């Protein structure tokens, strides 16, 4: 950790920086404090160009591709570590094998992340030299530490992967697990450092009255949006990593040659989907926290984000999140076909589907409608008298809580489908769960409808917290009741892994593609709300591209990025297939004499 000491704060550095952020520069400031120049005022001539190359598009695509791969390689070791630990605890080797296969996919992706990171640095130096220089001046210590940490992470990853079969059994396995922990620590630290550069551009900290940076590295890192982004990205990465390895499992399932392979990759796909959905459920709340912090940092930024020009991308986001929930549920429902006892629950699925679809329709209904001229005249304005109320946050909050709750219900039915309950209090347990769901649903609705529409805005926003807590309480209590009720329960029959229709695997692909597209679009929004600023309200973007592009243009660029990324991911999957092939070429090599 010696390399980190260079940028770690003195005991009271953050307080000093916080004071500096509000106070006029003090002539009596400590002599050791770095003096930073004001942000440069750039003109178009300050941005180098290469004929035929659109600098913004190149940096946009490369940064996005780097981020997609980066998110994947930071996330996978997290659940690989957990799966390996489960394998150690249960002594079931299949967990160890699956963890190894997950990390195997990561290795090529890791190289691609590094290559794209290098390309991004070159692009920034080439096309935005003044911005890069300015950020490097403020973050020099953390950038240097980042580069060194990258070596450390690589070393640990390679030992972790190549030493997998060597470090088996007894203390060796513990050493291996510890390496997994270290790998995660390095990975997360790297991401947190890079997040600081990004969030500083959105919410620069430690500025003096003239808007000049006047703090130390820690003050710049520990800016207003750093932790909200750290949390949001960590959770989102796990969901994303799960979806990509799910797509890998689906790819292998569809190309499987025999029953055993199909069973193995079916099981792997199920686990990957479980990870993706497990992390997806708390993600909206991490998103709310981030958005609330954006509003708190700058109301202007908040309104631009949710009510202004970027609001339409949130409608697309709503559609994609709905698609994620629908495909995840569909995968679970198809998965019930692995069990002989599923027929007991099949008839409930249509009711779950109705709640999911209705919640989803509420979730994406915009407040300001896209209307033809005649519709506008008929309605008497851009707002719908009845549907308009679905366009604001209380309705969305209510809908997303129902989406989460009923996705959990799908999972609960899936888990129960192959079990016979044996405890004597099963009826009471079921009744308690029904009561819990009904009471919770009523509470969520009252909180959404009454507090959402008939109280002032502070209470409106605050009501989302008890809604979330209600959902969490229902899920946690229900998990506990189910765990007790099904303890020692008998299996209806052995689960038939591999008995899955091919269309269920396309649901896994859809999950991965939706996640990728979603991350691209929302990543653009996060970056785009700076509008014509490199560093918000402090360092003006003077390049020819200092404008907010139209939504169609944005959607096209992000879609092209998604296609490139998915093509690269398929290449990674294909490589993992090729690496396992051994072709015997008869007659090619000289016969070796004994």
């Amino acid at each position, binding site marked *: 950790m010696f390399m980190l000491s260079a940028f770690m704060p003195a005991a009271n550095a953050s307080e000093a920086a916080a004071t500096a952020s509000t106070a006029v520069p003090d002539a009596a400031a400590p002599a050791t404090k770095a003096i930073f120049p004001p942000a440069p005022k750039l003109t178009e001539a300050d941005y180098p160009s290469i004929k035929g190359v659109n600098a913004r598009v190149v940096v946009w695509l490369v940064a996005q591709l780097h981020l997609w791969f980066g998110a994947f390689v930071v996330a996978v070791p997290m659940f690989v570590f957990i799966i390996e630990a489960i394998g150690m605890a249960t002594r079931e080797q299949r967990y160890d094998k699956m963890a190894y296969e997950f990390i195997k996919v990561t290795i090529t992706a890791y190289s691609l992340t590094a290559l794209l990171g290098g390309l991004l640095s070159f692009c920034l130096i080439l096309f935005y030299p003044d911005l890069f220089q300015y950020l490097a001046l403020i973050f020099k210590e953390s950038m240097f530490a980042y580069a060194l940490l990258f070596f450390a992470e690589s070393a640990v990853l390679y030992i972790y992967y190549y030493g997998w079969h060597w470090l088996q059994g007894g203390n060796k396995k513990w050493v291996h697990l510890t390496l997994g922990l270290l790998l995660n620590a390095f990975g997360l630290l790297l991401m947190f450092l890079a997040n600081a550069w990004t969030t500083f551009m959105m919410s620069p900290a430690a500025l003096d009255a003239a808007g000049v940076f006047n703090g130390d590295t820690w003050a710049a890192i520990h800016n207003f949006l750093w932790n909200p982004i750290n949390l949001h990205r960590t959770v989102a990465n796990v969901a994303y990593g799960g979806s990509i390895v799910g797509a890998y499992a689906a790819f292998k399932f569809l190309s499987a040659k025999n029953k055993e392979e199909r069973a193995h990759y079916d099981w792997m796909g199920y686990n990957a989907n479980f990870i993706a959905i497990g992390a997806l459920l708390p993600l909206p709340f991490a998103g709310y926290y981030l958005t609330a912090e954006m509003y708190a940092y700058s109301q202007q930024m908040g*309104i631009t984000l949710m009510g202004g*020009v970027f609001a*339409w991308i949130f409608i697309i986001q709503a559609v994609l999140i709905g698609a994620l929930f629908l495909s995840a549920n569909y995968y679970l429902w198809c998965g019930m076909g692995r069990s002989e006892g599923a027929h007991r629950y099949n008839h409930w699925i249509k009711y779950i589907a109705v709640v999911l*679809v209705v919640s989803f329709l509420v979730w994406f209904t915009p407040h300001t409608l*896209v209307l*033809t001229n005649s519709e506008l005249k008929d309605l008497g304005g851009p*707002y719908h008298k009845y549907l308009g109320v679905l366009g604001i946050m209380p309705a969305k909050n209510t809908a997303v809580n129902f989406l989460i709750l009923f996705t959990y219900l799908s999972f609960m039915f899936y888990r129960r489908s192959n079990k016979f309950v044996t405890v004597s209090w099963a009826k009471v347990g079921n009744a308690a769960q029904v009561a819990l769901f009904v009471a919770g649903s009523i509470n969520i609705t009252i909180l959404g409808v009454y507090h959402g529409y008939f109280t*002032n805005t502070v*209470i409106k926003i605050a009501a989302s917290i008890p809604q979330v807590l209600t959902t969490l309480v229902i899920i946690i209590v229900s998990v506990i009741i189910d765990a007790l009720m099904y303890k020692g329960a008998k299996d209806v029959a052995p689960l038939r892994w591999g008995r899955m229709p091919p269309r269920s695997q396309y649901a896994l692909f859809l999950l991965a593609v939706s996640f990728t597209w979603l991350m691209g679009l929302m990543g653009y929004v996060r970056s785009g709300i700076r509008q014509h600023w490199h560093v918000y309200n402090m360092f003006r973007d003077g390049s020819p591209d200092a404008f*907010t592009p139209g939504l169609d243009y944005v959607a096209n660029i992000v879609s092209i990025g998604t296609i490139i990324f998915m093509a690269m991911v398929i290449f990674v999957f294909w490589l993992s297939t090729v690496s396992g092939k051994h072709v015997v070429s008869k007659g090619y090599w000289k016969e070796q004499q004994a």
Partner: protein
Amino acid sequence: MNTTQKRRIPLLLQMALVIFGTYFGFILVFDVLLGQLIPKSLLTMYMVFVVSGVLMVYTFTEEGTRELTAPIKALVEDPSKRNIRNVVFVIVPLLAGYYTYSSMLPSFDPPTELRTIHPAPPNKFKAYGKSFDLTKLENPYRKFEKEDPAKFKEHVREGGDVYIKNCQYCHGDKLDGKGPYAPGLNPTPLNFQDVGTIAQLQESFLFWRIATGGPGLPDEAAPWISSMPIWENFITEDETWKVILFLYDYTGRRPRTWEHE
């Protein structure tokens, strides 16, 4: 064949009935019963996801999928269904062609646009010959709501006078955006009764919008479409604050605040 088995509608027909039933249900409820049409763009998106949901329910089991696709398979493969196949294979492309033709047909309607409703406020702006800091700006008369309700009521009444003399022509005497001039404007004036307009905003935001009007909208995310006049040229600063009191009082909405009251 088991004759005691309950006869039920074939799955494909069931699915079609659910989908078309939902589609016409939306139109019946909104266009006919509630008298507020459901916009085509929204209905299309609703139906995409209704169809997805219905398909998911009918295909998550193997038996369901087999039963659902059996008539389609038979239509394509079964030699005895040749006549109906020929009819379907003529009708479906014709319907698709008609749909494509109608959607591509040139029209005199202006293209629909995604309108940005809430412009992001600047931190500071100039009006009435001075600079206002939007992050700290408060309605000077709001305090009387608790301190002196009679005085507050008087200010609301004065605000009402200002509104009737200046604003109701567009925004309507019921504050619902349906004033006598409203039909001539596109986009139509804001409906203050709607839960998504003033109820979502701080009083300082309204003050900025009223004082600087359409021309005072920010450069970012332009072009804006607004025929709102620059009211600082016509009413005083006090009158602006009072009319804001009236807007909230009449509609029964509360201005957005960041703290509990």
